[in-house]
């Protein structure tokens, strides 16, 4: 039987969850043994295979139209979708801006911040994706497994990937369940 294919991508997060994935040290070889690691943001292949993958892993929440596309593409191409980390699961730190709104957050960052030069504007290049409210992935596309944590421990990521690669359903509880 062919090894299951795993692809990952990141959206509105800090890349910390992928760092935590690397934090599993030599066990990543075990994952590579069990599964065929395909597209990831830290490998050459950047998009999940058009022919589909078995497991798609997404880090980060969804806070603009570009992220929406990434989420939809991964959902369409992955049999099982894993939301990795607090931003993917809940919206996380970027969701703080939902309490003040996109407009106010952009203005604070690009116009009012103490470090800005006078006359700064909110970027408005038409090629830029449109900002939206920050959402958890499950608000945009159906998610099969939510793996919370900020970031999730390497142990948790290893457990989830190893279980999925071997065709089992990971169950997060007790020591494996942490939201941050």
């Amino acid at each position, binding site marked *: 039987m062919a090894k299951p294919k795993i692809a990952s991508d990141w959206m509105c997060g800090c890349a910390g969850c992928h760092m935590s994935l690397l934090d599993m040290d030599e066990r990543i070889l075990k994952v590579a043994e069990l599964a065929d690691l395909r597209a990831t943001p830290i490998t050459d292949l950047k998009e999940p295979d058009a022919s589909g993958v078995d497991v798609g892993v997404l880090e980060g929440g969804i806070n603009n139209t570009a992220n929406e596309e990434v989420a939809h593409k991964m959902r369409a191409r992955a049999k099982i979708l894993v939301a990795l980390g*607090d931003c993917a699961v809940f*919206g996380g730190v970027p969701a703080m801006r939902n*309490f003040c709104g996109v407009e106010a957050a952009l203005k604070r960052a690009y116009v009012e911040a103490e470090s800005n030069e006078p006359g700064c504007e909110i970027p408005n290049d038409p090629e830029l994706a449109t900002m939206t409210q920050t959402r958890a992935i*499950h608000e945009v596309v159906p*998610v099969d497994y939510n793996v919370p944590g*900020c970031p999730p421990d390497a142990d948790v990521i290893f457990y989830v990937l190893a279980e999925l690669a071997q065709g089992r359903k990971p169950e*997060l509880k007790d020591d494996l369940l*942490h*939201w941050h």
Partner: protein
Amino acid sequence: MVQLTINGKQIEVPEGTTVLRAAAQAGITIPTLCDHKELTPYGGCRLCIVEVQGFRVPIASCTLPATQGMVVSTETEALKKSRKFVLSMLFSERNHFCPFCQVSGGDCELQNAAYHEEMTHWPMQPGWNNYPVDSTHPYFVLDNNRCILCRRCVRACGELAGNFTLSVAERGAASIIIADTNVPLGESTCIKCGTCVQVCPTGALIDRTSAYQGNEAQITPVKSVCVGCSVGCSVNLLVRDNRLVRIEGDWTGPVNHGLLCEHGRYDPMTESRQRITSPLVRKNGQLEPVSWDEALGAVADKLKPLAGDAHTGVAAIASTRLPVETLSMFKELFAGEFKAHIVTSTEEGMTTAAVFAVAERMGAFEGKLDVLRTADLTLCLGADIVNSHMVAGFLIKRALPKGMRLVSINPQAGVLEDLADLALVNQPGSDLSLVEGLKAIIVKEGLGRTPLALPNAARLIEEAVRATGIPLEKLTQAARMLAGAISPVILFGKGITAQRSEHLIESLHSLAILVGAVERERAGLISMKGEANSTAAALLGLDAPFVLNGQQAVFAAIGDDYVSGRLVKRLVKAPYLVVQAAYQSKLTEQADVVLPVSTWAEQEGHYINLDGRVQKAEKVLTGPEAVRDSTAVLGEIAMRMNMPVRADWQQAIRERKPSMALN
């Protein structure tokens, strides 16, 4: 007793026990958020729902009394689903994002509850509404965005501290916690006891000093005792890397039952006095750092020739905030072979001398603060308890809404005025006439619980009215209230004891017997004492007035106590002054030798509180390198003067009759 079955387990509990408590007794944990064992059940969070055979729907177990034959289930699939739903609703209300919350990672009961239900995400996202944040309080921040409206803080404020500052404004999802009539916390009637912060299950009430300094779940709290005053509250000290992170009230504390006041909880956290880190000796008018050997040598050389000179030799004074080990050693050293003329404490027996002198003849007559739990009237004489002994004040304040009445008679206007059913102001020094007058009225009206012959009652009443300046009708009102109470308690403070009148204490005692405050097993007469070890100092006989009269040297053992301006003023005259202290003060500035010693948290020691509990304070911190234990320093001086000490404090405190049972 009623029998019920929970999860198939047969349990017997006293009538009136809630199903939640019954389950806990049987070792069955039912998740809950709004429940707290020291607070009355509220039924707010609905997390503790259970299924009861014959009931149509699940019901909150915290407000459900167990009844005979009840069959309860706590862990069915339907209940698990319901609890997850309850939590989902809570998470959807406000800002419960964990990564930027200071209680995340073990200290949050909401997060722990979600883990318990194995929630990997929120089925419903929050509504992104903003709620007020109040950061006007000096010790904590109230963030309504983290609040789950369990009302533990509101209940603790009223039920435990008796202060009723916190309440809830608005309705439903718009509800917020407010102070008074929605004024900023920092400008409210809050008395800063911090009990609300201690009971908050989430990050809605944030302690300023310990926030973001690591999880409580990763620190082993050490049980110790507060040395702020004579109440002797049990505390849990949270220490990390030799640093005090937070102080919490110990719920199992026999006196305070979890409560602390501003001084106990926050004073050690905001300590700003400068530490003394080296022995100092005055050379050419300047205090200079020297070795311990040199400093102790200087002290021994100066003091030794003065030993045995009972008049112009040495005067020794020790703080009543020092542990009994130090006080006992101090007493043995200076009152023993050394024969110093004055060996006393900084309180000079102002809060204890008369009481202990009476006990010398009568035996123990004072009661335990526990009597306040069943009191229906408290008479406070010469004591501003709410301010001087705050936690004892809470015990009184919280009993008032339950029907306890409070009568305060004090020479100072305004004392307990806001709280008392009757607050009277008597002329200074008229307390004996006052007490005799109250007794005479009770006897004259035939209201006494025990027989007392007072042939001259009419004259005593007349004298009381004249001396106290209180009109007869008010005195009569106070006397009738006192005589009419079923379980009265009489508390008296420094205003009474500082008069050093044994006659006054005896008179008070006979009043207590007359009205039934003291009868058979019940002892409802208590003096409030002063500092943490007032009682120990009294037991050691360190209670004489401190009057310098030509003494050639003074030894002052201050420890980590605050130095009163009065003491400094009196010690200016000392020709040679040795100060043993932890912190710099006006006193150390004028000393000839300064010996740096440990603080309360840096050395093990025992304290005897106002009602006779012998309690141990633990060593939880390591002091600066050159600082020594206050008992050890005295032992060293004794050795250098060749005056060996036995250092048996347990024996030493038994040489005098206590005014209350020691335990």
